[in-house]
């Protein structure tokens, strides 16, 4: 047990008006290091104690603004630099769409940072020891009394003089408050192994109980999700059919309505003999242009020069203006569209027969635009 040191003199008052009056007189009396303890915040105490405006607002401002800036920077980096992506036809940098996020992050970071600044800087957490803890004085002021506490370290403090000063203020229960050096040993008791351990166990146990209770034991499907339907899904098993597959082959000897099977699937030379059934009309060329611009142009380019718009995310195809492609018959091109070639997949599911032929008409028009025939000049 080390030596007792005088920490402060405390006194109690009965009413809020008395304590505000006492605080005013104490600050007028030249005391700097004193505090007032009341069961609840009192209006007018700031002025009575002549407290300067709180500096916590600056922490809120700084952290709030850094929240704004980091939200903006994060979204800018994602939406403009790293993964530029057109969303809903908006520009890459759609500021109005970012504003709500910036606002939320500002509020969130300002609020959290203010609480943590208060906790760690002002309250010096995890220091949880104070000489007034567990004193009769603290019990009174957290119940129904209003107390004032003048610290011994104040320049004007003088044991007898201050005692008299408090008496003159009309304080009752004037008490000497002491602290001992070894009370510092309990400063970090929040981090005590037993306490922290129980806290951790309680936290984990509560989380587990809540999680298991709500998500496993008491879980009820709120409504039938659209994903979970009583139907057969492709690539999934089935108990309905003897072979266990949910995907079925078409019935032998039938074809889908409006469709003709492509008979040259493994015979490009045979396909070369096919003739384009469509006449060269403006409507057909227009159809071909629409389909070409949708399905072909992302890789082959709008002019068929192989200038892909995909920024190297997919290999660029060769030009459609090469002599090889120009010399191909329509049927040979048809074969490539129907079956695919190298990394180009089949476009049979996207383009119908007629659309394929119309696209070929348009490709021919593109080729003629760069390599016109003699007859075109007449």
């Amino acid at each position, binding site marked *: 047990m080390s030596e007792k040191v005088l920490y402060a003199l405390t006194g109690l008052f009965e009413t809020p008006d008395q304590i505000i009056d006492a605080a005013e007189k104490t600050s007028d009396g030249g005391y700097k290091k004193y505090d007032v303890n009341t069961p609840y915040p009192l209006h007018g105490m*700031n002025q009575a104690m002549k407290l300067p405006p709180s500096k916590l607002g600056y922490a809120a401002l700084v952290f709030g603004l850094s929240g704004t800036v980091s939200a903006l920077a994060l979204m800018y980096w994602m939406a403009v630099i790293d993964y530029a992506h057109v969303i809903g036809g908006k520009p890459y940098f759609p500021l109005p*769409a970012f504003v709500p996020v910036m606002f939320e992050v500002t509020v969130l970071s300002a609020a959290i940072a203010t609480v943590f600044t208060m906790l760690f800087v002002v309250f010096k957490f995890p220091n949880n020891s104070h000489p007034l803890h567990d004193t009769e004085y603290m019990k009174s002021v957290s119940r129904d009394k209003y107390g004032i506490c003048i610290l011994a370290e104040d320049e004007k403090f003088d044991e007898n003089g201050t005692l008299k000063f408090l008496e003159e203020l009309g304080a009752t229960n004037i008490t000497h408050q002491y602290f001992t050096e070894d009370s510092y040993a309990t400063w970090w008791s929040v981090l005590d192994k037993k306490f922290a351990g129980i806290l951790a166990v309680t936290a984990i146990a509560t989380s587990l109980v809540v999680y298991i209770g709500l998500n496993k034991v008491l879980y009820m499907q709120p409504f039938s999700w659209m994903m979970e339907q009583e139907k057969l899904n492709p690539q999934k098993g089935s108990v309905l059919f003897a072979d266990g597959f949910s995907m079925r082959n078409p019935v032998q000897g039938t074809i889908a309505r409006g469709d003709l099977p492509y008979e040259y699937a493994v015979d490009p030379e045979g396909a070369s003999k096919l003739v384009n059934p469509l006449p060269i009309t403006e409507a057909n060329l227009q159809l071909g242009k629409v389909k070409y611009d949708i399905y072909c142009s992302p890789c082959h380019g709008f002019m068929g020069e192989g200038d892909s718009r995909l920024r190297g995310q997919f290999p660029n195809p060769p030009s459609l203006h090469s002599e090889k492609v120009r010399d191909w018959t329509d049927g040979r091109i048809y074969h490539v569209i129907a079956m695919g070639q190298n990394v180009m997949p089949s476009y049979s599911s996207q383009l119908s027969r007629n659309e394929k032929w119309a696209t070929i008409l348009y490709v021919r028009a593109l080729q003629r635009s760069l390599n016109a025939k003699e007859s075109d000049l007449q």
Partner: protein
Amino acid sequence: MNSTHHSLDYVRKDLPVNFKKIGLILSVVGLILVIAAYYSDPVRSAFNNLVFLMLLTSIGLGAMFLVAIEYIGGAVWSTPFRRIAEFLAAVLILVPIAAIPVYLNLHDLYHWTHTDVVAADKILSSKSPYLNESFMLIRIALFMAIWLIFYKIITGNSKKQDESKDQNLTTKNIKISAIFMPFFALTITFAAIDWMMSLEPHWFSTIYGVYYFSGTVLAGLAAVTFLAVYLNEKGLLVKGLKSDNYYSLGALLFAFTNFWAYIAFSQYMLIWYANLPEETFWYLARWGGNWKFVTLGLLVVHFIVPYFGLLSQPSKMDPKRLKFMSLWILFAHLYDIYWLVMPTFSKESFVFGWIEAGFLSLAVGLILLIFNYKASRENVVAIGDPKLIRGINFRL
């Protein structure tokens, strides 16, 4: 405790003679300019008259809202200033008069009043059960009647209390204020729709009423704040009012500045996101020509300056700052109404000239005169109110 007042220290004095002098000069100059304006350019004058009408409505209704909300909320801090709001609510008496020229020029202002245009337009003819002249006349008259009746009852009770000190009058006013609130919400919404939104009858925004409400409260608050600080500095209110009493005025100004920005941005963002031509044209009209600068200016004037001007806690109590910011916010609200109304009149570029100045001068002059008139006949402080002493002693 030497700063606590247990008895009332109020002596009724007349307002500084400047109120009447400046009010008279501004009103006379304004009236001459307004009459000249109607002779030289009736259409432009009609649009300015609408801005003038909306400004008076904002200040009157905003002040009325503050009075009612004090009663409903049982607020104590605002009691020493409530009479100022009551006087400002008297501006509502001018609203029907200011509305007469608008009715005489309906055809210049609202193209849905032209029956031939409506007949040829499918959208307008389907809106015509609501948007037609006679129904508009009836409902606006009804709105004004509602405002004036509630104004009369609530301020009448408050005035009676000065003499009788009867606490039951407060209880009565609480009930009447609670009845007033839903009426207030509906009438202000439909008044904003009728007077301003229907300038572009094809356009619609469901948040429009709330948008106008946010500006209205700001205008009422700013006028009350300026007069409260000014009159207190001149010693015309009760003794014992300190900057603590101003704090909530400053805080509310700050809050409603944010509220306005929130509503204005919500409206803009939803229209921008959906990008539907039937909605976007309203903003595009405010982005064409040099209207662009007015629109960007609105952001600065109505949000950024008041936001940073009132952000810190001390600035919400500083009398000098409050006087400046409240005048600034009143200007911002006028700017806002101008921005809402005038693009319909002048599509190419914004206009400001002696016609606009004349209407503004008349508005300020009339508000000063009516305030002076009320203050010369009634107490500037609600001396009979049971909450008054607690209000004076309010400390942060």
